[in-house]
């Protein structure tokens, strides 16, 4: 039972982590909590489902297309709802409210287009499971874990080693100095939104497969938990988002298994509050030091 819960928790946590990196990357660069991120995750899952059911595409083409289109949606959100505010040097809270507006808009758009009821997500990859003595791992769980792991490692490499990754870090650390290096800061922000939305789509589709259902409100709680994961690990810190996601996923399934399933959401936020009280910067976050 314990191992089973841990495995379920890690699977769920790796999906939270994929969503959390989107929050953390945008925050790192713009110091903005992008509250539309949960709705983007939901939109990606719905789009993939529609491509499969309405257009009859196979799972993989539908998956890829939905990643690209939702990634572009991320760019459109930045261009339409955030860039005009940045241009005017509007206070950060204006952008924050703007992202909440986008979130509500997306939820309602999906409800208008596809209805508000929960939709069945076809089991695209029915592959069975491996049975151990006391627990079992489904192949789907392994695929989710492996996909998350590969994407997370890829993202870490991208940010650490590539030219665009270095430009992203430079923009996050000092936007004005980044401009002086010849970095096109708006292009970097565009790329960051694309990347975050694309990863959120992967997460949304995998959750759809895992629970075999999607609904227009699925992004709300998942978005909040992924945000909690990003804050728990230290917002703006990439490994922190991954660690935070895993902790929240595991603690949630343990709470559901050992206490009561009604507490599964409460426990994630209880842990967040406890950690922040002891270490306000989050587990891997550091205080920003500025030398004058």
């Amino acid at each position, binding site marked *: 039972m314990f191992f089973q819960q841990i495995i379920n928790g890690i699977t769920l946590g790796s999906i939270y982590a994929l969503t959390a990196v989107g929050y953390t990357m945008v925050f790192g660069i713009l110091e903005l909590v992008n509250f539309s991120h949960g709705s983007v995750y939901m939109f990606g899952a719905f789009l993939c489902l529609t491509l499969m059911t309405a257009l009859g595409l196979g799972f993989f083409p539908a998956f890829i297309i939905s990643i690209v289109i939702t990634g572009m949606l991320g760019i459109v959100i930045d261009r339409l709802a955030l860039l005009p505010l940045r241009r005017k040097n509007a206070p950060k809270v204006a952008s924050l409210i703007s992202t909440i507006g986008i979130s509500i808009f997306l939820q309602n758009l999906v409800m208008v287009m596809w209805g508000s009821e929960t939709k069945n997500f076809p089991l695209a990859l029915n592959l069975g499971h491996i049975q151990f003595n006391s627990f079992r791992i489904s192949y789907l769980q392994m695929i989710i874990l492996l996909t998350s792991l590969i994407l997370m490692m890829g993202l870490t490499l991208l940010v650490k080693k590539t030219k665009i990754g270095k430009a992203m870090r*430079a923009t996050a650390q000092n936007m004005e*100095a980044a401009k*002086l290096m*010849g970095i096109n800061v708006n292009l970097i922000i565009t790329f960051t939104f694309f990347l975050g939305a694309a990863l959120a789509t992967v997460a949304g589709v995998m959750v759809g497969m895992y629970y075999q259902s999607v609904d227009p409100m699925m992004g709300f709680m998942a978005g909040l938990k992924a945000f909690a994961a990003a804050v728990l690990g230290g917002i703006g810190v990439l490994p922190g988002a991954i660690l935070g996601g895993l902790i929240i996923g595991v603690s949630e399934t343990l709470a559901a298994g050992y206490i009561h399933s009604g507490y599964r959401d409460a426990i994630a936020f209880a842990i967040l509050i406890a950690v922040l009280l002891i270490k306000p910067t989050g587990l891997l976050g550091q205080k920003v030091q500025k030398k004058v």
Partner: protein
Amino acid sequence: MLQVCNISTYYGNIQALKEIDLEIKEGEIVTLIGSNGAGKTTLLKTISGLIKPKTGSVKFNGRQITSLDAPEIVKLGISLSPEGRQVFPKMTVGENLELGAFIRKDNKEIKESFQRIYELFPRLHERKNQVAGTLSGGEQQMLAIGRALMSKPKLLLLDEPSLGLAPMLVETIFELIKEINQQGITILLIEQNARMALMVANRGYVMETGKIVLQDDAINLLESDGVRKAYLGE
């Protein structure tokens, strides 16, 4: 090489630069002196495209650059080492320098530039794997200048390179400025340390509350009564 013509820049309703004219010829060291709040930094930011002027024009090698954004101006060969160093604190010295060469694609030549910077600043070579935020003030200043040089600029803008440094280091920095200039890079230097600046410069401009009030050869400025009283403390 650089012609600043009739530039006025505003922060909101506050006019920070009032009809500034300034010219730099190839190979020169030109210094801009003046007290805090005179608008020196604003002028450099306007030249490098971080702020847009309300009126006036900036020409570089005959080309209008007034409306260009900062990244494009860097590509044309103007590089700014900003006030307060502004290094990327969580990246290593090597990564900071690498970002300085962001606009360049010639990997072989970039390697040579690294060597040249490390020869100019041996301290940076010793610390190349150290995170920039942990460097001392002087080392950060060297890094900021080195990073600005990595873009292979034709014109280097230096904003208060001696600020907050120990007197010994100040002399080192000024020696380096002369050396950089001898390697063929034109320099516009902003300084509060007016005496040192005028000693290395060919020509100087004096700024007061957003206006240029005096301009002359550096030697003449060093000897002029007004400058001596106001900026050299005599």
